[in-house]
């Protein structure tokens, strides 16, 4: 069963990738989708078994790297946490696979596309079922590769290629931290296997070690380094600039990788390491701080963007921020629950946006849309469902998870917790506002597209709408069906030993006893956000421009994404290239070669020329030289005799 769940996407990727030409596009689609359905069924069965009373288990395949004390195996570890991740991955991936059959039907390289999607799914499953850090790193970088390939899928486009490289390199910066964290883990614990590490964590609660000349708390060091990895993958503030650019990839890719699964790998990593993070309160505060700031910054940027996919991308970043500050206040189960519900409604929003883009002849600018809700009513309805879930409107999926996160932050009773709570409330308001801004701008008002485009607007085929409907069911139902298990009274049995929360940090437990206003405030701000968007974009349509004009500097600051890209180009990218050129021309060329081989050979050459001149052939030259020689020798001996 475990093998089917994890390995069938690999088989699909190999068949579609290697024999795509032989079996054709249809064959590749059939094979990959079929295998994905098999994987989904298998992981749902595993989930039902393990999370509802079963025992976690690990299947060891074979030794991967064995060097001294370092012993790492390929293994499939299924505990409650990986089982949850596995169903999210396989279900969303299946929906996206099927959707892609319709979405990509004009494309020339459909087999390759399906192969990449399956490859991604495999890598992601390897990541979550790892029982050691190295396999986790394998999956971690593997999804990075798939993401790179898929962002740059339309590889004749320069912008797509640039975005792909940016994503890979930015992620590498995060991975740099992750890798260092792994080395620190190895040196501290002498092993990279999760269970062996967790068993020893409390022994090291007070140990210190040396890092870059500083004397630091070992577990905190590990915690921070691992979190840097999580920041890269999950687009947290500072390492986030690749995510919006990643929207260059085909929309199904955005839904699967850059919304539902890959970007949540960082959340998974921190949750997986909860036994360690429980011993590092300062690091958790840092995580909460970064998470809350990300939630806020991303939401402010989303307010001003016009590209429909970028709005949703910033929204994703913002929601990931929520998950991280939940992790920071030890509400791991709440973070995982939000990851779970978010996967459905955000994939739904992205695929819905894809359906709009498909209908609008590949137009992504919301300023050129409008007035199409009657033409594509089904997509319109589904986008509503997705937005309701995202804004946390009661009884939709996002309501349960987001409210729990905010309540847990409040219940943490720490200054960082309160900061996260209030920032989270503000972000919730903005979330509601930009979601309805998106809906109104895209679907309502007068059509702003050309007539030719408008003539072509059509509802997507069944192969695209059925997966959408499936995700919509998740966006509606995933919350109230699973809330008792993920975060409610049944959570102890549901999570088993997969998540560790120290008794004094049980914010999820405390969250059930927060004052009523804390529970109601998110709903109220959400409603206010929706209302404001309605006024701005349905009633007083000239307001947005006026407000933007009034706060033009703030607006351009937000519109330009807080100038992160410009900053990085200035302090990172350009200096690197310039330094490289300098080291090449001046370092290697002028200095090393100039003083070394070339310099020496020039020296030898000129010495030879000079000594050749000495051999002039004139007697008096030689006689003169002899005379000097004799004088020199005589002088030398006289001095010696005198001295």
């Amino acid at each position, binding site marked *: 069963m475990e093998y089917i769940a994890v390995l069938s996407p690999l088989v699909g990727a190999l068949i579609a990738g290697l024999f795509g030409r032989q079996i054709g596009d249809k064959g590749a689609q059939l094979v990959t989708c079929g295998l994905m359905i098999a994987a989904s069924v298998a992981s749902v069965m595993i989930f039902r078994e393990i999370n509802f009373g079963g025992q976690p288990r690990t299947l060891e395949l074979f030794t991967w790297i064995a060097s001294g004390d370092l012993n790492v195996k390929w293994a499939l570890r299924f505990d409650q946490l990986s089982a949850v991740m596995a169903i999210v991955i396989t279900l969303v991936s299946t929906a996206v696979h099927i959707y892609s059959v319709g979405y990509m039907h004009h494309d020339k390289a459909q087999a390759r596309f399906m192969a990449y999607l399956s490859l991604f799914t495999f890598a992601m499953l390897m990541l979550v079922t790892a029982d050691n850090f190295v396999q986790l790193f394998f999956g971690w970088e*593997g999804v990075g590769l798939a993401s790179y390939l898929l962002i740059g899928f339309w590889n004749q486009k320069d912008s797509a290629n640039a975005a792909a*490289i940016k994503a890979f390199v930015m992620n590498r910066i995060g991975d740099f931290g992750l890798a260092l964290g*792994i080395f620190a883990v190895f040196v501290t614990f002498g092993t990279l296997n999760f269970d062996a590490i967790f068993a020893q964590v409390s022994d090291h609660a007070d140990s210190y070690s040396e890092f870059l000349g500083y004397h630091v708390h070992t577990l905190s060091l590990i915690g921070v380094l691992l979190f840097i990895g999580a920041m890269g993958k999950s687009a947290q503030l500072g390492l986030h600039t690749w995510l919006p650019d990643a929207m260059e990839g085909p929309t199904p890719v955005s839904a699967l990788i850059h919304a539902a699964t890959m970007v949540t790998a960082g959340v998974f990593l921190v949750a997986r390491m909860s036994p360690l993070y429980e011993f590092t309160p300062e690091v958790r505060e840092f995580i909460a701080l970064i998470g809350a700031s990300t939630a806020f910054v991303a939401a402010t940027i989303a307010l001003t963007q016009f590209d429909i996919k970028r709005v949703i991308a910033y929204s994703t970043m913002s929601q990931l921020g929520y998950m991280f500050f939940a992790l920071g206040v030890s509400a791991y189960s709440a973070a995982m629950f939000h990851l779970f519900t978010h996967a459905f409604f955000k994939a739904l929003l992205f695929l819905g946006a894809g359906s709009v883009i498909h209908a609008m002849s590949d137009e992504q600018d919301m300023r050129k849309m409008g007035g199409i809700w009657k033409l594509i009513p089904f997509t319109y309805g589904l986008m509503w469902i997705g937005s309701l879930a995202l804004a946390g409107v009661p009884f939709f999926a996002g309501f349960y998870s987001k409210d729990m996160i905010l309540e847990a932050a409040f219940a943490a009773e720490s200054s960082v917790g309160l900061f996260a709570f209030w920032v989270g409330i503000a972000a919730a308001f903005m979330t509601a506002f930009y979601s309805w801004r998106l809906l109104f701008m895209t679907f309502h008002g007068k059509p702003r597209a050309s007539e030719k485009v408008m003539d072509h607007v059509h509802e997507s085929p069944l192969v695209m709408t059925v997966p959408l409907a499936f995700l919509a069911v998740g966006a509606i139902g995933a919350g109230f069906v699973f809330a008792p298990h993920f975060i409610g009274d049944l959570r102890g049995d549901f999570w088993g030993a997969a998540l560790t929360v120290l008794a004094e940090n049980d914010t999820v437990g405390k969250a059930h006893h927060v004052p009523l206003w804390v529970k109601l405030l998110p709903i109220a701000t959400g409603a206010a956000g929706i209302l404001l968007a309605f006024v701005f974009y349905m009633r007083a349509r000239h307001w947005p421009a006026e407000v933007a004009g009034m706060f033009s500097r703030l607006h351009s600051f937000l519109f330009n994404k807080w100038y992160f890209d410009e900053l990085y180009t200035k302090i990172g990218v350009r200096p690197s290239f310039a330094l490289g050129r300098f080291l090449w021309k001046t370092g290697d060329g002028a200095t090393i070669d100039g003083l070394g081989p070339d310099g020496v050979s020039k020296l030898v050459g000129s010495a030879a020329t000079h000594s050749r001149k000495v051999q002039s052939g004139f007697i008096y030259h030689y006689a003169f030289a002899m005379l000097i020689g004799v004088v020199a020798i005589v002088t030398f001996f006289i001095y010696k005799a005198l001295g």
Partner: protein
Amino acid sequence: MITFPILSLLTFLPLVGVLFLLCIRGSEETVARNARATALLTSIFTFALSLYMYQNFDKTSADFQFVEQVAWLPGFNINYKMGIDGISIFFVLLSAFLTPICILASWESVTSRVKEYMISFLLLETMMIGMFCALDMVLFYIFFEGVLIPMFIIIGVWGGARRVYASFKFFLYTLLGSVLMLVAILALYRAFGTTDMIALTEVGVPEAMQKWIWLAFLASFAVKVPMWPVHTWLPDAHVEAPTAGSVILAGVLLKMGGYGFLRLSLPILPEASAYFTPLIFTLSVIAVIYTSLVALAQEDMKKLIAYSSVAHMGFVTLGIFTVNQQGVEGAMFQMLSHGIVSAALFLCVGVVYDRLHTREITRYGGLVKNMPRYAAVFMIFTMASVGLPGTSGFVGEFLVLAGLWQSSTVFTFLAATGVVLGAAYMLYLYRRVVFGELTKPDVKAMKDINPREIAIFAPLVVLVLWMGVYPSSVITPMAPSVARVIDHYHARNAAAETAKADAQKNNAAAQTSAEGKGDAE
């Protein structure tokens, strides 16, 4: 059990091929055809023989195996001594594996003086295998130097436009280092009366002498690796060398430096090695960062890969001088992996160079459209070079850094930045060559890789993935020998420490007793 002298056979089998090649007569075309076939067959036989040897190699033993010893200069106690352990065997395999690939890669691109070209390659193979098998320093030196000559000829005769400059630069750089090594060998011989590598590890060279000899060895090995700042011959040599020359240069010749450190510096000069470790770490880290940045700015495909080689070899020297199991095994693995990956990358450049006769990156673009198979192969090796887990490139870097962290977090931190830069320059190269719009007419006319080229790449792809997914198949056989080297190193250094402490104690004791005596008087 093998009863015949398999190492000598392996070493000199290519020379038999050379003999056959010398006998070929006829029109130019027949000579070329026969020369190619003879060389290929010879190298394949050699490779098969090396596999047979590997089959019979005891993978659980740390000792030298298949040892042969014949008195060579009896009056001088210099012997013809050969033998291999878990460290050298993989380099022998690598050399024997890459030679047929090189010959296949030159099948169509080399058209002039084919016979002489093939002779050079077979000579080179003899020298390389001999060097990795030699257990006597004089013999080692002869092979070590001997490698220079065919390589010099290959670059100088079949190279590109600036081949004479490049070949002389290569020759002089390496010769300068090697001469110092010769002096060191003579000094050791004078002091201890033997050139046997195993015997020398036990004689206990005095510490002051160790340092001088260590520096002399460094001069030789650092040029070969190459370490910063004596790396500038490499880009020129690579750029001018024919494809197969680059392949063997990157694939095997660079490993001779790392092998020298492991085989000579660490075991014979353990205290000096410990003393100079910070120097090696510093130079290596500079190499990693410096050459990665330089690679970012390159406009020539081969130069870019040459600079990336320097960066990757920086990890090797870092790993060796951690002297712990992960670090050294990582360095070994990195050398083997780099041997295959960089060889493959140079072959990838060769493929497009054969078609368009330029190495300038901007002349290409959009190859994925007309050369999809090539694009896939190139992608795999790019990812291996970047060190993606699942490919061979990851394992070496990971182990080296894991080992290095135990020695120094600062150097680990700095070296790990190379991993980020590595991704940047390789992907940037790939993007400019393979992706983008296919507009240039001559690039459009390029054909995808043919069956011969697929036959060259297929084994390389398989190896890269095999070593990435199941690296323990390579690490386990080398582990006992690596452990032997490491244990010996630490035992020697510990002994030196206690000896020093004892000497200090004795001194102090002598002083106090002398003072005591003075008081009594």
